[in-house]
């Protein structure tokens, strides 16, 4: 290690100390007490989320291979593309992201309210119901009982089980908030509280409302996009707002920007959904409203981007050491990228090309993977050692996990962005036969499979490492799994 980077780290450590200097020994004890109050609940959410990450990413990989090898496993009805693809989406969205997100949110809620978790027993019921709902819903899709609407494939019974599970998740969060011992409510907590109010409303309206024809299509995409608005994105932003300042040891850049970011996000984001139906048989005004709202999203996105990146700016050297920070910064940067891309994709001229193509699939993975999933990885790396009181045993595995998933998702997104754009141009040119527009995407689909394979390899390593940690196998460490060694660590 160079002298310079050593100095930088020492500086950062000093700053972190200065930032926390008002805290006394009691604070540390309180934190330990808080962490202990959420330990088993958070661990259950994390462990089951990893199960769904494994299942879901294998489904995704099968679907990806099938796009260029259509006869592969072609004789098995349960594994046909049209079933495995929605099974992939639902397991990663409602299994992996939701459960890992729930675990992270409840831990952050306790930390940010500075009280031990209230009504913690409810979370066991929540985790149980949630897992049962996802398992039941996924089986229903695979065995042919899908409801046939994207993001809403689970049968209503599975939806009801998940909704009840969510209530048992929301109540402890709200109760803990009521008991809070802080005056100032930190921005991460705004997003958490908003999402626990939004999600049940959204989920119930979508699963149990009755609409006909194109209104149902509108509802479908109001819901589909809003699952990101009320749940996936707030989880990601709460994590980014929490861990960037925490790991860097500097306060967030601007309180007012976070305020602007939050309320403009709440106002504009849930009007976006109909941009999935541009060019479709819906009233023009309705589509236009969503396009306008999608472009307005530039405001919250830039507010959040400036806030995050100004906090990180000048501290990029710390990325060399901290696994959590590396995942978090990757995720925060992806958020800016995917959101600005999303606003652009809502413009009619661009949507004309990208709609109905793999470009959209690339965009979705830039959001749900490069943004949400990478932030969740970072959060789990930070939280787990504090719960299990055991450090991650092998920094090398963390590094491998990061590079496999980061490179994998970059290949994935770049391949589908280029391939999808090309597909759209061909599709919109009637001189090219339709089948040619399909055939010409195949090289990009192979690349996507390559990216996906790397990502899944990363997941396997992560899950293996997680199991080692829980079993307390491997060397005992007394320092975080720094990628380099900013401070002396010892292996016993």
């Amino acid at each position, binding site marked *: 290690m160079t002298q310079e980077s050593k100095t930088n780290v020492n500086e950062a450590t000093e700053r972190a100390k200065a930032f926390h200097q008002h805290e006394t020994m009691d604070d540390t004890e309180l934190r330990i007490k808080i962490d202990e109050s959420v330990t088993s609940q958070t661990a259950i959410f994390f462990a089951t989320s990893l199960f769904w990450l494994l299942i879901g990413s294998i489904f995704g990989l099968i679907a990806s291979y099938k796009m*260029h090898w259509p006869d592969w496993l*072609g*004789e098995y009805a349960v594994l046909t*593309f049209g079933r495995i693809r929605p099974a992939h989406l639902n397991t990663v969205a409602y299994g992996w992201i939701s459960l890992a997100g729930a675990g992270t949110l409840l831990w952050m809620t306790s930390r940010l309210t500075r009280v031990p978790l209230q009504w913690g027993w409810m979370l066991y019921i929540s985790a149980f119901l949630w897992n049962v709902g996802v398992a039941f819903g996924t089986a229903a899709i695979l065995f042919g009982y*899908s*409801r046939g609407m994207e993001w809403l494939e689970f049968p209503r019974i599975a939806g009801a089980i998940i909704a009840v599970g969510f209530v048992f998740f929301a109540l402890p969060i709200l109760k803990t908030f009521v008991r809070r011992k802080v005056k100032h409510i930190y921005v991460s907590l705004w997003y958490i509280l908003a999402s626990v109010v939004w999600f049940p409303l959204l989920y119930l309206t979508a699963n149990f409302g009755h609409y006909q024809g194109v*209104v149902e299509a509108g509802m479908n995409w109001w819901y589909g996009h809003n699952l990101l608005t009320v749940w996936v994105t707030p989880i990601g932003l709460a994590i980014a707002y929490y861990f960037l300042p925490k790991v860097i040891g500097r306060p967030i850049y601007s309180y007012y920007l976070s305020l602007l970011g939050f309320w403009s996000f*709440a106002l504009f984001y849930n009007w976006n959904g109909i941009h999935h139906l541009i*060019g479709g048989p819906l009233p023009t005004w309705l589509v236009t409203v969503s396009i306008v709202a999608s472009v307005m999203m530039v405001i919250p996105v830039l507010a959040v981007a400036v806030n995050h990146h100004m906090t990180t700016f000048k501290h990029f050297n710390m990325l060399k050491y901290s696994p959590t920070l590396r995942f978090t910064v990757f995720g925060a940067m992806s958020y800016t990228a995917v959101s600005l891309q999303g606003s652009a994709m809502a413009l009619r001229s661009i949507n004309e090309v990208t709609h109905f193509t793999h470009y959209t699939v690339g965009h979705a993975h830039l959001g749900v993977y490069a943004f949400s999933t990478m932030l969740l990885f970072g959060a789990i790396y930070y939280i787990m050692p504090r719960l299990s009181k055991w450090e991650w045993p092998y920094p090398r595995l963390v590094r491998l996990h990061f590079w496999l998933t980061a490179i994998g998702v970059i290949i994935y997104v770049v391949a589908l962005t280029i391939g999808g754009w090309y597909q759209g141009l061909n599709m919109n040119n009637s001189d090219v036969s339709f089948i040619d527009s399909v055939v010409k995407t195949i090289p990009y689909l192979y690349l996507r499979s390559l990216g996906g394979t790397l990502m899944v390899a990363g997941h396997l390593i992560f899950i293996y490492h997680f199991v080692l940690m829980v079993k307390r196998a491997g060397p005992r460490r007394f320092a975080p799994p720094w990628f380099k060694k900013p401070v002396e660590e010892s292996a016993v």
Partner: protein
Amino acid sequence: MMFIRSFVFFFGVLATLLLGWAALVGIPDIMISEVKPPEGLERYTAEELFGRQIYIREGCLYCHSQQVRPEGFGADQDRLWGRPSVPADYVYDRPHLLGTMRTGPDLMNIGVRQTSVSWHMLHLYDPRLVVEESTMPPYPWLFEVKRTAGPDEYILDVPGNRVPEGKVVVATPEAEALVEYLLSLDRSFDAPQREVTNDDDE
């Protein structure tokens, strides 16, 4: 003070979501529920509805849309996929199957473009028998390979020597219903004049 702040926060959070719902779902629901089924659009028969269930079960919607874009937006009109779709085309559709992906072509009017039962049967049994470069998966479980076909059963005319000697490939009731549904997809009738909701054609 703290209580008021929390109240304002939660009220604001609720209001933003409800506003979005009202604009994107509630108001369109009131407006479009007045749309009458157009002349020329027939209700699905029981068999077509069963076929539609198979369409959903096998996830056809993840690669095929059912919505035709208007002139000047994509090449749907040049590809002769049918006139632009309007809300009235979907009054009998539940769940909607508009789709968001075109790994395969749009199917809004497939019953007009491809009327051959034998083509559809072979295409479902193994798409590459009829479209060499197709990337569509095969659906062998919708068919049965057996010694003799029953009196009402549809026998596939599979080219080459893929079928074992002395056996025939017959369509299951599921395959027959699915083909029936695909053939029913026909929105070639005139769109209702002055769609209440579309200001495009003025």
